[in-house]
């Protein structure tokens, strides 16, 4: 009898410990469930890929539809307008410039930022090309419009709000000799970039293809208005 009495207490003590363990385990399981598991991450990235594919397809469709309406529209004038607005793909002679991060081995204590391509490097290249009479420019397949940005986005660059990373390929349509010379000018962009070991290749070509702008053009704030006389200062 006494053994059983003691047994009761021992079972009670053990149950106490068991309950404690159960509660801890419950909380642990809940924690693990609420954490984003690797499985979940994979799921989400797969879905992201899917959505991106879908988006690309829809973009293409949109492009086609735009093209159709343009063809149905007022022919030559609208084509000219589209060309200027960057809404039509273009082809012509020009240059293709490939820029890649430096392949120099960095000495210790040096700033690694000096050896990677930045937004302002690309901006200078684009500026030079425009100054040399480039008619259309694209960076990594993103057509540059008047509203396009070239902006540092972490380790990548964002053009038309699409991110891409090195190597960058800038294609420009224009007089290929002019464009090439503008880039290779003494003390010009290419030379400055080469100081930092940034790899830059300039290839003139006769059939540079520049894709159309794939985003949407919105005018949320701008409205058409009449011309006003403003004094030039």
């Amino acid at each position, binding site marked *: *009898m006494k*053994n*059983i009495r*003691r*047994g*009761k*207490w*021992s*079972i*009670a*003590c*053990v*149950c*106490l*410990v*068991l*309950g*404690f*363990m*159960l*509660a*801890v*385990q*419950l*909380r*642990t*399981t809940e*924690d*693990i469930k609420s*954490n984003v598991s690797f499985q979940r991450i994979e799921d989400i990235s797969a879905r992201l890929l899917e959505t991106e594919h879908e988006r690309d397809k829809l973009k293409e469709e949109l492009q086609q539809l735009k093209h159709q309406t343009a063809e149905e529209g007022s022919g030559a004038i609208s084509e000219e307008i589209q060309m200027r607005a960057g809404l039509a793909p273009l082809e012509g002679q020009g240059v293709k410039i490939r820029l890649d991060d430096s392949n120099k081995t960095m000495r210790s204590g040096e700033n690694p930022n000096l050896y990677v391509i930045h937004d302002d490097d690309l901006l200078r290249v684009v500026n030079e090309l425009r100054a040399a009479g480039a008619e259309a420019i694209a960076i990594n397949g993103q057509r540059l419009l008047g509203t396009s940005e070239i902006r540092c986005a972490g380790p990548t660059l964002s053009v038309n709000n699409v991110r891409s990373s090195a190597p960058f390929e800038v294609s420009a349509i224009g007089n290929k000799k002019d464009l090439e010379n503008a880039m290779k000018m003494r003390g010009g962009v290419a030379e400055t970039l080469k100081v930092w070991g940034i790899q830059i290749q300039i290839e003139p070509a006769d059939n540079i293809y520049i894709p159309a702008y794939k985003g949407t053009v919105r005018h949320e704030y701008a409205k058409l208005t009449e011309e006003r006389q403003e004094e030039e200062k």
Partner: protein
Amino acid sequence: MVLPILGLLAGLGLGYIFPVVIPFAYAKFFSVALLASLDAVFGGLKATTTGTFDSTVFISGFFLNALMAAFLVFIGDRLGIDLYYVALLALGFRIFKNLAVLRRNLFNRHHKGLPQGIEPMI
């Protein structure tokens, strides 16, 4: 009957009050240990119904089984042998067996009356 349940409830309450969380890396060992303890408790309950209960065996079994189960799984982890599932299977099997014996003993008792000198706990 009342005491073990009170103990269990108190344990659950304590577990909820103290913010103890097992890190993810050790969750596996802890769950095996928990299963071993569950097995020990059911084994103890069974023993009380068959009349072979010994509190020393019970308490030592409870803690040692849990520790050994977790330790074995840990060793298996180090050796690249996943003993986790083996432990789950073996312990789960034992729990069900203990439950079956427990149930049978309880029913037998109601049919034939209590064996002499044994106080029902459940």
